């Protein structure tokens, strides 16, 4: 292993590049992770997966109608696609005897198929690459157009936009903390407190779509799906309290982005986004084994304590 290449160079000669990749990975992972916490608590982890696929036709339609890649049209298209997906899932499983899991599968696959067809038919007009949607190209994030305030360079547009989305997500969660909490844990209590669970549900899905689409272009669907689920799941194994869970989620995101950068370099320049997910999975596996309260080791010891040694005859 080339220590110089893997560990030193990114933070010395290539610092100006690496820092943006790192920040982007961290912003994406923590924004996704924070929304993902609620998905896990609401047992809707795979709805996140579904929406991250079904924003594709939303993006394609938004692009075809507006002929531009402006941020707000993209956000609007994605938000609509997210809400349509949620509605479709709801309609299929409440109006027929098809269960929710199958409804999710049907809804997202049809929408994704429509998206792929739209992109292939209008390939000359749509500047969207389906493969980029899947892999993403976080490596090139630093070369994105810089955002200027006056004459000061703040950073590449993608990173600045993602920072804005993360900030918005955090503000929304802080403002509606109580509503999200009660509607996630106890629908009955939410009703008695006057919280409209349906509105909260759709608002959460709309937020999710925005987070997904802003992360999409630069990091791809895999990182999004993974970061919706893995940080929250790791945190869920380590704590029983929602605020602590959120803090752990953010720490997890920071660590996996860092590990991912080095892992990708060590692994002869494989996809950085993929390497970040692999790092996140490794952290999850560590939590699974070593978690003080829910870990495998603890579980094993507990079983041993509870079943006494058979007495020798």
């Amino acid at each position, binding site marked *: 292993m080339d220590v110089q290449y893997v560990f030193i160079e990114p933070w010395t000669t290539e610092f100006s590049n690496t820092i943006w990749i790192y920040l982007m990975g961290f912003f994406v992972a923590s924004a996704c992770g924070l929304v993902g916490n609620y998905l*896990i608590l609401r*047992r*809707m*982890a*795979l709805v*996140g*997966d579904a929406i991250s*696929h079904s924003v594709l036709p939303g993006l394609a339609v938004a692009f075809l109608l507006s002929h531009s890649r402006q941020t707000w049209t993209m956000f609007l298209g994605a938000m609509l696609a997210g809400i349509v997906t949620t509605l479709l899932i709801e309609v*299929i499983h409440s*109006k*027929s*005897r*098809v*269960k929710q*899991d*199958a409804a*999710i*599968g*049907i809804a997202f*696959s*049809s929408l*994704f*198929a*429509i998206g*792929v*067809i739209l992109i*292939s*038919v209008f390939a000359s007009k749509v500047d969207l690459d*389906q*493969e980029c949607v*899947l*892999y993403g190209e976080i490596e090139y994030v630093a070369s994105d157009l810089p955002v200027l305030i006056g004459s000061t360079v703040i950073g590449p547009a993608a990173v600045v936009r993602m920072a804005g989305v993360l900030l918005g997500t955090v503000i929304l969660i802080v403002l509606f903390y109580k509503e999200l909490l009660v509607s996630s844990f106890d629908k009955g209590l939410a009703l008695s407190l006057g919280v409209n669970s349906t509105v909260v549900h759709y608002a959460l899905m709309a937020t999710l779509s925005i987070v997904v689409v802003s992360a999409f272009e630069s990091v791809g669907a*895999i*990182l999004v*799906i*993974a970061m*919706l*689920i*893995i940080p929250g*799941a790791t945190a*869920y*194994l380590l704590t029983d309290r929602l605020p602590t869970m959120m803090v752990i989620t953010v720490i997890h995101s920071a660590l996996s982005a860092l590990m991912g950068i080095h892992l*990708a370099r060590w*692994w*002869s*320049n*494989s*996809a950085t*986004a*993929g*390497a*970040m*997910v*692999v790092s996140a*999975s490794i952290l*999850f596996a560590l939590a*699974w084994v070593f978690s003080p309260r*829910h870990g*495998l080791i603890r*579980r094993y010891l507990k079983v041993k304590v509870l079943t006494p040694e058979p007495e020798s005859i």
Partner: protein
Amino acid sequence: MNFLPIHPPWSGRHIPRTLYVCVIAAVILFVFSCPSAMAARIGEISETNIGDQVYRFFTLQDPSVRYTIAGCILLGTCCGMLGSFIVVRKMALMGDALSHAVLPGVALGFLWTMEKNPLYIFVGATIAGLIGTATVSAIKRTTRLKEDTALGIVLASFYAVGICLLTYIQHLPTGNKSGIDKFLFGQAAAMGREDLILMAVVCVICLVMVYLFYKELLALSFDTAFARSLGLNVDLLHHMLMLLLSFAVVISLKAVGVVLVSAMLITPAATAYLLTERLSRMIGIAIVVGMVSGIAGAFFSFLGNNLPTGPFIVLAASLFFVGAFLFAPKHGVILRWWRTLNRRKRTIRENMLKSIYHVLEQRGFDAEGVSTRELAEQRRETVEDVEGTLRELNSHSLITRHEDGNITIFTPDGWQRAATIVRNHRLWELYLTNEASIAADHVHDDAEIIEHVLGEETVMELQKRLDYANLDPHGKHIPTREDIEQRGRHQKPGTLTSGYGGQV
């Protein structure tokens, strides 16, 4: 492991076994009789005349079209059959997770030989799929994370490993790596002869396994506890099903791609689930839907040059689902809505008939006509509302209307229906007070609902249990069979034996 007597899905009156055998045999013959000379692949066709394309597709003159159709038929069979099991087991998204989880296996299978040998890729992908499903089970068993989260973790992490390996492969200097990315989106036209042979073999293996273990899989799907109590090794069966599922996913990858494989497993099976109640029939329908959408997808992708096949197959399957969702005879939205509407209308009619009976009863059945005003007072509705319902009753010949529509008289049918409803209502009230010990003033609302749905057999049973009592908890007369069958002679109910006639 105990074996239950073999009872395959195609035995008995459902789908004839011969159909399956014929289809599979035909496909296998078809594949092997294909000339091995490679003609132009679908993607390379350049002429754009649609009529020509349609002709070429349906005359099967191109080997590539034959390959594609054979592949889609095999794929539809395999996915439809196995998808049925995961849909009824509420594990539909297992297919989604599996299709992503096999990706590292695909890449490793490629790295093993550095060429796209379908067999190595198949073995690698199957192993990766099995490790994936085992990890899902392990996470579910040993942590407090729920199934959806466990699936999501496996899906994302395995897929990420796969992507890393794929980019690694693309950075390699050697090897015929072109086309490895076809696994992401799928191109049925890129299937070769070896792919098809592999598909046929896998398809036969899946059919044979499901044939042999049908009873066991049935028990596992609907009642795991029951399956366990029969002495079946439930875990082994589950892993066998997952193995077959990995097979199906791997052979579908090339045609429809990673993202859309799950649709091939879920959508045809969910369509069939709306159309039938029996697993054997569901499997049959799912296979047919899978095959037909496969062929339709291949057709459309052939029409528009160079369009990916997978999305079209998925869209065709989704259209079938929409059709079943709307028009299925028993579970379809439209027919269900129509039935509800009819039931609601019938309830309104029956309530009006009941009110006419009540008005007549309050007057001791001394006249056979009832005025609209009286009915409006009885029902606490406006005269216009009553008028509308009466017109409806008239058109069903349940009543006749006299004196410019002001006086309503039962027809014999109308009398019968009204007396039946009143009888049902009062019998039920009596039953609830006597047998369920509910207070007499609490039983009305319940009876108000049940009166419209009680069948003749239930009524007879109720009468027997209540010793043919003829007074309800409020002291009113319960119409008897004789009362109902007077058919409008308007004998005063309950006084038949006394010989008193209430005719006017």
